[in-house]
């Protein structure tokens, strides 16, 4: 009887969160799905109506579409590679005994707290600017030609900025995992004559696997929807060279008012996120059960 009571109380306490998230997930998405089959232009309401899959066809035949998917995946994969590998190396370094470890940690973690527009503008203007940036100063110092980062390598420039923001996160998580490694195990391995590399491969890496999975999952969620960094640096250009899927959808919806196409793009973004999420969640779910 008491359990029955607690159970309904529990349901009652859970209800607000569940209902809010359910509404938040279903209502706008239903709208988007509906719009994706409509011709809808707020500027020209005469031609509105059901158009079947033609928005998807239009979006798909837009050369920017494939490019944007490719750019989205390039950003996700490159940043993941840089931050996970860099994060492991940095975590190993920061785990060594040293002077001023607390301050070093604070310095390394800091970029994560910088809001995306600030990070992007600082890199764009003060670091990568072809004339006044620090990189240009360095290039000139060595007698080289400064690189026009956002003109010539726009996607690479964005990847560098985003990786700078997420490297601290990966490092912090991996360092925390590393520090929970049993010291005795390490010593035992050392006594058995295991060198640094084999200790790393057979002891440290397996111990960190769960943290690495989590880092990949969380970063993927955020990296699939990089937006502000593109908005304030390249605005997607030149051409579509640095347009990712979120940015293309934003352009279609709020700049060109092609709502149908934008919605079709949004649904494709959801499908893409679901494919990625399916694998990520499975990995995390498995890891969390341990």
């Amino acid at each position, binding site marked *: 009887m008491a359990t029955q009571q607690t159970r309904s109380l529990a349901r009652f306490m859970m209800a607000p969160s569940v209902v809010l998230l359910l509404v938040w997930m279903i209502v706008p998405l239903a709208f988007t799905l509906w719009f994706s089959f409509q011709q809808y232009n707020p500027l020209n309401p005469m031609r509105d109506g059901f158009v079947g899959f033609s928005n998807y066809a239009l979006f798909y035949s837009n050369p920017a579409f494939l490019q944007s998917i490719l750019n989205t995946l390039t950003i996700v994969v490159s940043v993941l590679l840089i931050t996970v590998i860099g994060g492991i190396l940095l975590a190993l370094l920061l785990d060594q005994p040293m002077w001023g470890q607390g301050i070093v*940690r604070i*310095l390394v973690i800091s970029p994560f*707290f910088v809001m995306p527009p600030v990070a992007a503008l600082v890199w764009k203007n003060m670091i990568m600017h072809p004339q006044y940036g620090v990189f240009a100063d360095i290039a000139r110092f060595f007698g080289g030609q400064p690189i026009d980062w956002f003109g010539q390598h726009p996607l690479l420039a964005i990847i560098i900025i985003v990786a700078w923001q997420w490297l601290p996160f990966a490092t912090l998580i991996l360092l925390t995992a590393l520090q929970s490694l049993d010291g005795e195990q390490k010593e035992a391995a050392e006594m058995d004559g295991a060198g640094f590399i084999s200790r790393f491969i057979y002891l440290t890496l397996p111990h960190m696997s769960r943290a690495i999975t989590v880092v990949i999952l969380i970063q993927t969620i955020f990296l699939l929807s990089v937006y502000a960094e593109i908005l304030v640096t390249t605005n997607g250009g030149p051409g579509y060279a640095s347009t990712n899927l979120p940015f293309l959808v934003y352009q279609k919806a709020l700049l060109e008012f092609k709502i149908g196409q934008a919605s079709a793009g949004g649904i494709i973004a959801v499908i893409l996120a679901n494919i990625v999420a399916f694998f990520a969640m499975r990995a995390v779910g498995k890891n969390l059960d341990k």
Partner: protein
Amino acid sequence: MARAVTTQHKTIATAAAWIVALLIFFPILYTIITSFKSEQEAIQGFNLFPSGTTESYSEVQAQNGYFKFFLNSVFLSVGSTVLALLVAIPAAWSMAFSPGKRTKDILMWMLSTKMMPAVAVLFPIYLIFRDTGLLDSRIGLMVMLMLINLPIVVWMLYTYFREIPGEILEAARMDGASLWNEIIYVLTPMAVPGIASTMLLNIILAWNEAFWTIRLTTTEAAPLTAFISSFSSPQGLFWAKLSAASTLAIAPILIMGWFSQKQLVRGLTFGAVK
């Protein structure tokens, strides 16, 4: 002998770590340095020693009205966090103390809502906001930020509450404590640290959210993310001013962040890494 090796090892590790750390921190450091230069100095090539003028700071306030955006950021991040806590605490509580068969599924589902790309619902949300007059309103954006971070708040609270031993509740009940007394004298003191950590992390996330805060505001409700983004349109050379605005925008959260490293790890890994 062994000791000498250790000291040498430590020296090398220290040097390497400091060099890497300073390189990573450099863009932030250089922004702070540049904010104390005049515009003229700021474009005269690499220079780590500013003249120390604070004219950029007064200009950011005088010309751009920095303080209004700052207040919006404070209001939005704190407001959305408090709102999220009010909704999430009961949920996390019940999931931690009387978990059912589907508790884990519900948690995973909540996490999955976080994976929905924001652009997919940009236009419907934009329409709903426009038609209800919520565009550029602080309340509308506050609710939005609350919804975005709700899954993380529930998860984080859940991992904290789960660590409160259930036996203590039973003991209190045996001693005849009413539900109300149980909540005030037994649970609250144990739950407060977790709630505080959750609050801290969530304020940081809301402060830095840079999609909805930019797209759903124009002037009235615009927080610092939108304010800084407005600097992306070319308006002459403004390095020092940009640096001053940036420094002001990140300083409060940077300092909060330094104190929240542990909570950050736990909160963003959904308790999987502690």
